[in-house]
């Protein structure tokens, strides 16, 4: 297959775009739910959806992590400069680091206390770490501020894709479509 028509495989593309959608959805729901009025009909359910989708993303990214081992990873386009390749690699690593810290800290602070957490009255979340209230607040701080960082990174990532598509007129974005 020539470099210009080569695409990422179907599963990679599905995971990529569903991750994008879910992560943005998580950011927006997280943003909204902390300021919801107590009497809002969403007050009880939105945080549970947020937690459930967070879990889904965590599993999706574990799957992504395993798939990194595949030998069939696509190489960078030959038109990309060394700096671009290096930058892309850094952004990729940073995505993994941020998504794992954000999802894990979210899990840990919601399950770190003495009470049992059950989503939608059926999914019991096991307590993996017992945390003090100070540790819970620290985890929540990380969860919030790294989510902002993740959105900035996603924005840069999207701008870079647009730059490749419109300015460089190369195949970078098309490989993921």
């Amino acid at each position: 297959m020539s470099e210009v028509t080569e695409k990422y495989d179907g599963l990679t593309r599905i995971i990529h775009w569903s991750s994008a959608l879910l992560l943005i959805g998580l950011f927006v729901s997280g943003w909204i739910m902390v300021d919801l009025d107590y009497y809002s009909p969403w007050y009880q359910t939105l945080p549970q959806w947020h937690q459930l989708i967070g879990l889904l993303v965590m599993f999706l990214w574990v799957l992504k992590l395993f798939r990194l081992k595949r030998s069939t990873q696509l190489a960078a386009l030959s038109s990309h400069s060394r700096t671009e390749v290096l930058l892309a690699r850094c952004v990729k690593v940073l995505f993994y680091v941020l998504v794992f810290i954000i999802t894990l800290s979210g899990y840990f602070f919601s399950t770190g206390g003495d009470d049992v957490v059950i989503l939608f009255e059926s999914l019991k979340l096991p307590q993996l770490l017992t945390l003090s209230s100070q540790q819970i607040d620290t985890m929540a701080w990380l969860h919030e501020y790294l989510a902002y960082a993740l959105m900035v990174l996603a924005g840069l990532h999207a701008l870079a894709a647009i730059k490749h598509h419109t300015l460089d007129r190369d195949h970078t974005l098309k490989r993921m479509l």
Partner: protein
Amino acid sequence: MKLKTLTLGLMMAAGLSHADTYNIDTKGAHAFVQFKIQHLGYSWLYGRFDEFSGTFDYDEKNPAAAKIEMTVNTASVNSNHTLRDKHLRSDDFLNVEAHPEAKFTSTGFTEGENGHGSMTGDLTLNGVTQPVTLDVQFIGAGKDPWGGFRRGYEATTEIKLSDFKIKKSLGPKSETLLLTVSVEGIKQ
């Protein structure tokens, strides 16, 4: 004349006698800082602070001089719900990062019958100091089985959250909190 001298003598004795200081027994967990507030107006939600300390002075001959000072670690708020407690610690409620301590310093005690009475003082919560009056019940006092002397009270008051600039309101039925402070002091 004789009666007058006697009264004067007693008053002097009262003035000279010094009050006993009691340490609030937090080590043995014989003291509690509890609160309750209505949920939607349908039920009572109970919570407590797990970490606090304090001392009080009491002199049987001069109860009016009784005083108490207590400090509460606001981050130790516990309502048996991890995420609610996290919310209570945030700046929507207790803002524990900015105001890690709540404090009560008494300003006066009026003893009524059977050791019960009414205590006035300044309560500092969320960085705001307001005068409050506690209804004090004397529970009992005497020797304990281990060689000490103990004295215990339970005091209650109502506070309006908005008086202490607590940002979040959970509705019209949940604006007043009932505070119960139950203490057992060990005489020093």
